[in-house]
């Protein structure tokens, strides 16, 4: 009995630290509608700063907590810099564009941290006054765990007081409820956003600083906590602090007891909970349905137009050029171009649901990965010929999209994004943890193409022609009734519904259609590399796709193609030529693009040269 009680308390302690990470993320999202991917970086900064303070000052019991608060404040100020220097400039950009900016911030903060504190993992000093363990029912529990158990509810209480007993808090709650109305009533939104960002960043820093006595600081923290933080926020309901607290307790306890029963399945459990909660309560435990955004600048898009003569001749010329490449280039140029083709297909298929479909998927990698693993597993276990395995990929991916899509299209906006993310993470954790079948992160090796495609040049033409054909089909589909109906569902769901279109079913079909093409892209990738790894299903793969579409321009048809080509070439070039700081250079380039081209690169070019189209 005592054992289970201690396990329960241990679960509560980790729930408190989960809550601290998630609370700030939830507050920032509630008011500004920004999904701050850099939240993990702020958490990491908090850990490093407090480590530095604690080891240089080695304070007493009161000094310890002062140092923790000071670190959190510094991180809060970093948050203010990010908000004022960067995000404020792009609030008018399309929804989710800020996400990319925060991704650039992750890359930069990570390199800065490495430059300041070095590469070695830092192990945190114990907290003064709480450095030992207490014995409860004959079992030991670290004193600091008790402090954490108190800290979580304490922070929750303080946030509640601020929100319910101060004018500022009232405004924040009002803004969470209806941001435009608050603006219309004359509240200084700029100040409100900045201060909310300070508070969110402060909490992230507090979370990082408070976990020092239980862990330490290392350079992988930023990405390691972000997925968990999102799970908590989504399960609790975006913008709901009490919900985040509840969700943290559920996940914390589930983990503490889950490892007794399923020691190997810790990762799957968490995302499975998220999916179940979203299916039963789509807006999270204590969240509210998303209110329609009335943000200015979100006017309906002009109808899509077929490419005019100039664009078409540009396309033709590019294709001709690509056909000629193998005649005068080295093998490695072809390697890079094949990568680009694969990502173009991936990005265009993502764009199909994201742009014309209006459904932003955070888990498109699931279908790419399903296709990739379908091919690889068939070849590995059954010795299926490459041609058949390649055909199977889109079918399996479509089947996956069929199931996941059925659940996902019931939601919209950010909740849709989060549910697709949850499904992608479930797929990933199964691939990763079911080692007997998928070989886990060893990957599946030696999946090479058939003999007739074994030369680089042959595979180059194969990938090129397949990509061109698929991109053509995806593009052509947008100008068929299927495509028009899809867009009708995006632009005006009510009217579409009124004229007899089943909007959800249409979205579901579009989701499956796009998933199939992503699966094919995954399969082409497998045969070009000869192997597949869980990376192909992981979050960064989905994010890369989003970056390509958004950097290229989500409201254009050529955007994803240009975005994919540019992003792939840029990453490759930077990482080959500059080993040490290439990520922060990439981050800086991303930030520059985000600020200079809020409509994406192709969107910018189009607006610049053909403003007439905007009027339509």
């Amino acid at each position: 009995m005592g054992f289970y009680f201690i396990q329960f308390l241990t679960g509560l302690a980790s729930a408190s630290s989960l809550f601290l990470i998630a609370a700030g993320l939830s507050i920032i999202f509630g008011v500004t509608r920004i999904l701050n991917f850099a939240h993990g970086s702020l958490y990491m900064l908090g850990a490093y700063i407090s480590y530095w303070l604690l080891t240089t000052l080695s304070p007493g019991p009161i000094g310890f907590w002062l140092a923790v608060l000071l670190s959190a404040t510094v991180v809060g100020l970093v948050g203010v810099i990010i908000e004022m220097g960067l995000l404020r400039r792009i609030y008018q950009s399309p929804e989710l564009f800020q996400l990319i900016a925060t991704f650039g911030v992750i890359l930069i903060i990570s390199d800065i941290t490495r430059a300041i504190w070095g590469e070695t993992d830092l192990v945190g000093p114990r907290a003064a006054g709480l450095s030992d363990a207490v014995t409860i029912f004959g079992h030991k529990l670290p004193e600091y765990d008790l402090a954490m158990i108190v800290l979580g509810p304490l922070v929750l209480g303080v946030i509640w007081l601020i929100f319910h007993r101060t004018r500022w808090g009232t405004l924040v709650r009002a803004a969470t409820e209806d941001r435009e109305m608050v603006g219309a009533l004359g509240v200084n939104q700029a100040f409100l956003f900045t201060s909310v960002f300070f508070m969110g960043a402060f909490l992230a820093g507090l979370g990082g600083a408070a976990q020092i006595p239980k862990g330490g600081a290392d350079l992988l923290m930023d990405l390691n906590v972000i997925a968990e933080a999102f799970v908590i926020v989504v399960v609790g309901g975006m913008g709901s602090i009490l919900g985040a607290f509840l969700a943290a307790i559920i996940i914390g306890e589930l983990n503490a007891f889950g490892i007794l029963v399923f020691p190997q399945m810790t990762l799957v459990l968490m995302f499975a909970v998220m999916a179940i909660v979203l299916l039963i309560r789509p807006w999270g435990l204590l969240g509210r349905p998303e209110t329609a955004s009335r943000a200015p600048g979100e006017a309906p898009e002009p109808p899509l137009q077929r490419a005019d003569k100039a664009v078409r001749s540009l396309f033709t010329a590019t294709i001709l050029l690509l056909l000629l490449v193998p005649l005068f280039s080295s093998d490695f140029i072809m390697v890079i171009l094949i990568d680009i083709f694969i990502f173009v297909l991936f990005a265009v298929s993502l764009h199909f649901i994201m742009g014309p479909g209006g459904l932003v998927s955070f888990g498109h990698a699931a279908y790419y990965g399903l296709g990739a693993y379908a091919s690889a597993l068939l070849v590995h276990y059954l010795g299926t010929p490459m041609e058949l395995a390649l055909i199977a990929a889109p079918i399996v991916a479509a089947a996956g999209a069929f199931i996941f899509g059925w659940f996902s299209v019931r939601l919209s906006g950010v909740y849709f994004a989060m549910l697709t993310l949850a499904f992608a993470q479930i797929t990933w954790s199964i691939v990763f943890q079911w080692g007997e079948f998928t070989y886990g992160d060893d990957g599946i090796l030696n999946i090479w193409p058939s003999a007739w495609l074994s030369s680089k040049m042959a595979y180059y033409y194969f990938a090129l022609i397949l990509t061109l054909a698929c991109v053509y089909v995806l593009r052509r589909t947008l100008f068929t009734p299927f495509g028009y109906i899809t867009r009708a569902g995006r632009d005006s769901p009510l009217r579409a519904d009124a004229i007899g279109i089943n909007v959800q079913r249409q979205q579901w079909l579009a989701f499956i259609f796009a998933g199939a093409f992503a699966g094919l892209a995954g399969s082409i990738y497998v045969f070009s590399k000869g192997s597949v790894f869980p990376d192909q299903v992981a979050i960064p793969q989905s994010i890369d796709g989003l970056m390509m579409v958004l950097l290229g321009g989500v409201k254009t048809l050529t955007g994803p193609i240009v975005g994919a080509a540019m992003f792939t070439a840029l990453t490759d070039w930077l990482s080959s030529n500059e080993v040490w700081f290439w990520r922060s250079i990439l981050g800086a380039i991303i930030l520059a693009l985000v600020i200079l081209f809020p409509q994406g690169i192709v969107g910018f070019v189009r607006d610049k040269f053909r403003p007439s189209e905007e009027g339509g």
Partner: protein
Amino acid sequence: MRKSFNVMAGLAGAAMLISTAHAADTIKIGDINSYTRLPGHTVPYKNGALLAIEKINAGGGVLGKKLEFVSRDDNGKPGDAIKKAEELFNREGVALISGSLFSHIGLALTAYAGQKKKLYLAAEPLSDALVWAKGNRYTFRLRPSTYMQAAMLAEQVAKLPGKRWATIAPNYAYGKDAVKAFKEVLKAKRPDVKFVTEQWPALFKIDAGAEVQALLKSKPDGVYNVTFGPDLAKFVREGKLRGLFKGRTILGLLTGEPEYLDPMKGEAPEGWIVTGYPWYAITDPTHKAFVASYQKRWKDYPRIGSIVGYNAMLSVAAAIKKAGSTDTEKMVAAMEGLDVDTPSGKVHFRKIDHQSTMGAWVGRTKLKDGKGMMVDWSFKDGANYLPSDAEVMKRRPGK
């Protein structure tokens, strides 16, 4: 349009020039490692490798040519590593590639080397599959494998009375290999031991308090630990506070390596039996000279990665010298059965499975002056901790 065609043609032309320019006066060694993902481990490796290269070049190079070290970051992803390998061979014209730390990346490069018939020296990855189940003619491995290090630890505890063993290992390939090998070797020596629980925290996401409780629940006599990095630090802290280590035998695979022991400073565990690298206490003169020159060159002390990187480049140079050329087939033939004198003693690359016999140090951890050290250590020659040749042939199919 014409303009951009010219630009492309120009670029392609330049690329061709670059790709033919390598037939010059240096021999390029391609290096791929997780420099941005795990800098704490890979930077010492690179420093060690560069030190060896500088030393070899100062002595006139190999075959009258200087060695050149061309580094690439794999971003911690196997797919990227393969791409970098293609770039290094096709664009940089390297003679061979070496490096990598993560097992799965090492395995990906192994498959690549086998398919493309290029030489790959896996310096640091530990996976057993790399030379056995998935080994091939073109891949060699330097560092003592998971099996060898697990066998060294199992030998230590086989003499002890404890019968109930628990294991904790990160839930991925390396952790699984390490537990499997340990159970296999210990069971063979001690059929009476029982494995009472296995804990598998997700890599770098350990919930240390809960894991320690789960281990306590099974009341083991000994715990075999494979966690490392930030997971290890959290595990040690919770284990100490919750009394897991008291009165039990604790084993730590790799825990004695400075990469893992040093960050813990005064929190380092005491009395664990570990494999590691007590560079500060090794009295062999060749090794002392290595430490001195490393400290002089990098103003830092060597880690296990440093000596592996150093030995890797010595091995590469010796192989090219013995082959008399940078032709892949000739280098492979030269590496099979190659003997290299290194600061950690003589290393032999076995013909049978391409595993080197580089050894490891086994000892107990102890706190000295507020940091963890290895004491009562002894050097174990890797050659003594490999299965019989017949067993190896069974595990390395198709060879």
